């Protein structure tokens, strides 16, 4: 399934400046995997050293937060739009 991943502005420099990337995938996890295979420099900003998606990285499929669906196993279909949206968190040590 061909889906479009929208790249957030701060990460576009690691994706040849592109705002959108088309990938073939059937799940959110596959879509992100295809993205970082094409642009490996994105990986450290999306995934922790453990290989898990960073806790502040959220993935929306057509405006639905995949964490409220099936996480990285959330199905995607042709024509879907995948958005990478951060939570913003921080604070004192």
């Amino acid at each position, binding site marked *: 399934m061909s889906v479009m991943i929208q790249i957030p502005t701060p990460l576009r420099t690691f994706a040849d400046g592109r705002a959108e990337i088309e990938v073939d995938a059937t799940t959110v996890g596959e879509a992100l995997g295809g993205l970082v295979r094409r642009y490996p420099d994105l990986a450290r900003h999306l995934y922790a050293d453990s290989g898990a998606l*960073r806790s*502040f990285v959220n993935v929306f499929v057509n405006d639905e937060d995949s964490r409220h669906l099936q996480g990285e196993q959330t199905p995607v279909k042709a024509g879907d739009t995948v958005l990478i949206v951060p939570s913003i*968190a*921080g604070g*004192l040590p």
Partner: protein
Amino acid sequence: MSRLVLSARHLVAIERHAAATYPEECCGVLVGRALDGAEPGSLVEQVLPARNDRQDSRENRFLIPPEVILAAHKEARAQGLDVVGYYHSHPDHPAVPSAFDREHAWPGLSYLIVAVEGGKPADRRSWRLADDRERFEEERLDDPVKKAGQAARPGRRKAPGREGRRSQG
């Protein structure tokens, strides 16, 4: 060195937010546009205060959920602008990012931190995450009203002596 161009009016609005939420951390979104040229950075056009969505530990943690970020992006794009960074406060702690801040940051954005001591804004510094995620690099805070050559130096800076107009962000 990168720079964050932020008017005194916007800085006053951010510091008022920080003081009002003390001893809890405040947070918000910086909307504007990227600056090109010899001195890259960002120009802040709007300040969007956000609610700290943490259910606990708001004295030393803050959270802006993704739905709010998505809405901020949509609002920015509708005006031909973009989200250029975020701000938060450090109650009774220096305006220096923590390891927790670094773990939750992305490069290419400005992270403005206001140190609030005893309820009063005491310092404000802005930072950008290095591409390798190993450290933050401080960026210069500039006031667009100041003439060239009189830009603020990074680090401590006194708060404006007069109250500015309310930010319309």
